[in-house]
């Protein structure tokens, strides 16, 4: 991760390579294949949340007319820019985030990413390009894939104009292949948590997913997950538990509460409870990628994401996870500023509880804005939820 940021910092200072800012499930493979270094503002947002800098920075963005109710990645990140404060300084001694040459979004996550990048486009006078995804998708239709594949193709001349270099199909295919391999390895890592006891937890995975987000499409990401998978398999084969005396297994639905990862991880560990799977960490599995069909397979991979699907699909998805990971309950995180990735709001906990015969718990909080989180109330809810599991 350090190398990722140092490389970007060097390029921003010297102009040695063009830098694309990309949304976290944007067209990374195309950008890599066209020679861009890729920077992810959402990753920066997560760092702002994890370092608990967000809560102080968000109000500066609110004052510009960006509501406290919209994505707190957006409001944290813009606040960080306005105040010239970044965790990159604290962690890597890097003065600021790398200035972009182009901003590239995919609305498969939400509309906020487009609004976020639009702000920077106006502020920095940098071109903005993107993909507009279909939403609420049940069965994926051919016309949707054709549309998205064409939108990705349409990016090529716009990106060529920025890079000044001709699109190279072989480089693109190579990036797609590396990204596919990264995804396969990342999935395999996550699947090890199906073991009882689990060799790692959701909280571990939220940290180790970093390269799957920021370095997919590179050899380094593949190398990272080959090492991680080996370690996890060793732990699994030797019965090494992430939580000593694992008694309960849970599923986490929704965004992490970045500023409370440690507190929550310690609370669950104290309760002998392992969060074994999550929709969130699974969201960077793109194993439909195929170097032989790079545009179409990217369209499939970035359209079949959980976040763009309809409610029946999402329910089936979690039911499938239940079969594999054998969890005893589900925790839904209702993130105040992330309605698109808070799946408790349309009755899903009640439906899944009924269908799976599992208890569910909804925690109110946020990914970054800790003003929306009552720690005492959340901790009591979690403790009571585990008490409830123990009564069974």
């Amino acid at each position, binding site marked *: 991760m350090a190398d990722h940021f140092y490389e970007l910092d060097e390029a921003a200072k010297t102009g040695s390579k063009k830098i694309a800012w990309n949304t976290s499930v944007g067209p990374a493979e195309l950008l890599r294949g066209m020679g861009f270094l890729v920077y992810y503002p959402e990753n920066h947002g997560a760092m702002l949340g994890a370092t608990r800098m967000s809560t102080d920075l968000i109000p500066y963005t609110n004052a510009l007319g960006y509501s406290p109710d919209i994505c707190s990645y957006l409001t944290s990140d813009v606040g960080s820019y306005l105040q010239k404060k970044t965790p990159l300084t604290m962690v890597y001694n890097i003065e600021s985030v790398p200035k972009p040459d182009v901003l590239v979004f995919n609305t498969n996550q939400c509309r906020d990413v487009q609004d976020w990048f639009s702000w920077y486009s106006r502020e920095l006078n940098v071109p903005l390009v993107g993909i507009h995804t279909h939403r609420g998708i049940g069965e994926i239709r051919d016309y949707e894939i054709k549309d998205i594949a064409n939108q990705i193709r349409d990016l090529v001349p716009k990106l060529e104009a920025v890079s000044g270099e001709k699109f190279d199909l072989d480089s693109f295919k190579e990036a797609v292949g590396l990204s596919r391999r990264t995804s396969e390895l990342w999935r395999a890592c996550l699947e090890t948590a199906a073991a009882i006891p689990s060799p790692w937890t959701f909280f571990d995975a939220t940290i180790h997913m970093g390269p799957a987000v920021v370095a997919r499409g590179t050899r380094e990401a593949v190398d990272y997950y080959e090492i991680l998978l080996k370690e996890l398999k060793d732990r699994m084969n030797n019965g090494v538990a992430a939580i000593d005396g694992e008694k309960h297994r849970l599923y986490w639905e929704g965004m992490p509460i970045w500023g409370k990862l440690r507190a929550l991880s310690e609370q669950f560990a104290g309760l002998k409870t392992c969060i074994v799977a999550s929709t969130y960490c699974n969201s960077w599995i793109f194993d439909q990628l195929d170097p032989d069909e790079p545009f179409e397979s990217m369209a499939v991979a970035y359209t079949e994401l959980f976040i763009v699907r309809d409610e029946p699909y999402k329910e089936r998805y979690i039911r499938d996870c239940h079969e594999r990971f054998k969890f005893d309950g589900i925790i839904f995180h209702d993130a105040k500023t992330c309605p698109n990735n808070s799946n408790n709001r349309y009755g899903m906990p009640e439906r899944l509880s009924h269908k799976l015969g599992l208890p569910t718990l909804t925690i109110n909080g946020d990914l970054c804005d800790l003003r929306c989180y009552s720690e005492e109330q959340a901790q009591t809810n979690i403790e*009571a939820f585990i008490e409830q599991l123990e009564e069974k």
Partner: protein
Amino acid sequence: MSDDAESVFVGVDVGASRTKVAILNASKRLIGHSVRKSGTDFAHTAQVCLNSALEMTDISRNDIARCTSTGYGRKNVSFSDDTKTEIGCHAKGCYHYFPIAMTIIDIGGQDNKIIKLDERGRRLNFKMNRKCAAGTGAFLEEMSLRLDIPLENMDALATSSENMVELGSYCTVFSGTEVLEKIRQGKKVPDIVKGLFYSVIKRVLEMDSLTERVVMTGGVVAYNPYLVKMFKEITKREILVPEYPQLTGAMGAALFAME
């Protein structure tokens, strides 16, 4: 030493607003209890509250076999042997009084809980209010300040209402503004207070569906029986209330201590 003193069990519920202590004898009979404002020093308040409850009995501290604490300040009770959440303790306390499948509605000082139990008293699910005090005791406390009415007078005022004023706001602060608006319009105070009770009931009803028999507990229920009557009329359900609704959590904690 009386028979009661042979083995007594103590439950301490340190809530956001009030601290409650219940002392049970080995026959699960309530032999001592006390309620105090929680204040800022939870450990001290719990101590004072225990001493006060002990004064109702002929036992001493040395006769306490075991103590369990619950509530937001459960970890601040120095003499407690164990802690349980208030959700678990309310469930335990209610099932002690009513050994049936039920929906518990607890309206506390700072939070509301809805807890569903099966016929064996096991929790099926629970919900607490979100990070907002609308519909809790804190809402009524805030309104009593706004209206300059002692909290203990609100039940009688609501009972005397002839034409309830309905309040539309969700938020405690906005409701306060709305109440001032109603006063300016010349609405009668009893009608406004009944509207406040109705507001509390609406907030509770939107938290979860009601299934099985309904049991209501908590300080708001203890001091405002008219609110329970309104709840009964609105939901068209029989509402069960334990003998000491404010002590339910402490009772449950004492029962856990006994286990």
